[in-house]
């Protein structure tokens, strides 16, 4: 059986989640490996969510937020950008494959981009194989 990765998507309510909705209503095809969690803003994301997701068996984590400058709360994603950049560096220095964590800005009107990003990211994670480093043996 081919490897089907589990990918956690954390999407901001105002842009990426709505973008995902648009991708759905326009009936775009994209892989089913993404499990989406909706948060009110990308700056709501506690970096520990990402560490914990990897521990609980996620093969990849995709964070989606509004384009910088478009945040519903004006500055949320600007804080998130700095914070998630640090998260990325920490994951990388701890020894995890850097490609397993990705942040994308997808607006509410970019259903196409959402489908593209998910397809591309799923492909990338498939190539990386199962994530075993953080995963807790159960």
């Amino acid at each position: 059986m081919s490897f089907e990765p589990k990918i956690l998507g954390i999407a901001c309510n105002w842009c990426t989640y709505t973008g995902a909705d648009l991708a759905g209503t326009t009936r775009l095809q994209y892989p089913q490996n993404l499990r989406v969690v909706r948060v009110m803003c990308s700056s709501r994301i506690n970096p520990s969510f990402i560490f914990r997701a990897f521990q609980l068996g996620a093969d990849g984590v995709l964070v989606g937020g509004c384009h910088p400058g478009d945040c519903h709360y004006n500055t949320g994603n600007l804080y998130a950008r700095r914070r998630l950049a640090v998260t990325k560096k920490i994951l990388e220095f701890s020894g995890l494959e850097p490609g397993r964590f990705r942040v994308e800005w997808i607006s509410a009107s970019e259903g196409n981009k959402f489908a593209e990003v998910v397809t591309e990211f799923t492909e990338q994670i498939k190539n990386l194989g199962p994530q075993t480093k953080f995963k807790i043996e159960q």
Partner: protein
Amino acid sequence: MATSFKQIEEKLKTEAAKLLESGSVSLVLAYGKGYDEKHPMPYVAKCASDVANIVFNEFCTYNMARYLVRYPRGTKIAVAVKAADSRAVIQLIQEEKVKREDLVILGIPVSGMKNPKTGETIDSKTTCGLYNPVLYDVLLGEEVHGQPVVSPYDVLAGYEAMDKDARWAFWQKEFDRCIRCYACRKACPMCYCDPCFIDQTKPKWGDKSPEPAGNLMYHLTRFHHLAGRCIDCGECSRACPVDIPLYLFHKKVAKECEEMFGQAAGMSIEDKPALVNFRVDDSDKILE
């Protein structure tokens, strides 16, 4: 020639006595006698007669800025700080945990501090490598002129060049030794959250007993919480009973923050901590 430790001790005593007698501060955070010469202890002098107990020698490595947050706001405190410790004070002022006007900062220019555990000289391989305090009211001794032995981030080169799997194995080996005594957290001047995220049960981020998953969660999140705030005093690594080189990871995160956000932690009271700040023109490249 740098001021000798004995001279600094005398100056520290005089200064502390002066401050306590005049009543301009209610306590002085300095170093006191431990069970032997090699193990001095943090000491709080509360009246002029306590001053005689103050000592200062090459083993006084502790970061006294750690104790500032333990007193109610508005307490007038004099604190003895070495180079990196003064950055911790600045960082605490930036974070509005203490007020500049409540503090009298007794700066100590140092060179040749020694790790009480190993007896090795502490230099820029494990700390920020500064000799003189960045911010002080009184400087106890002459400024030390000198360059750090190596640039403070040089020590990272070998680890950055490592293959990611080798680096993972390296950190696993280190974190697996962790006994979760939380000495790193207790020694850290920037770790003042109550409760610490790892002590929370709702949500429960990780097990509190030593086990690999919880150890990883605790350490990685702690590195994250100290991003852009760690002032590289190296106290966490010296406090660690199982010698985990935590300073390496902190240095790496500090280096990345400096490169990405263009500011080092605790260098100016005008700054804002990097992660509670942003620039509209921050590049998206930092996410790659």
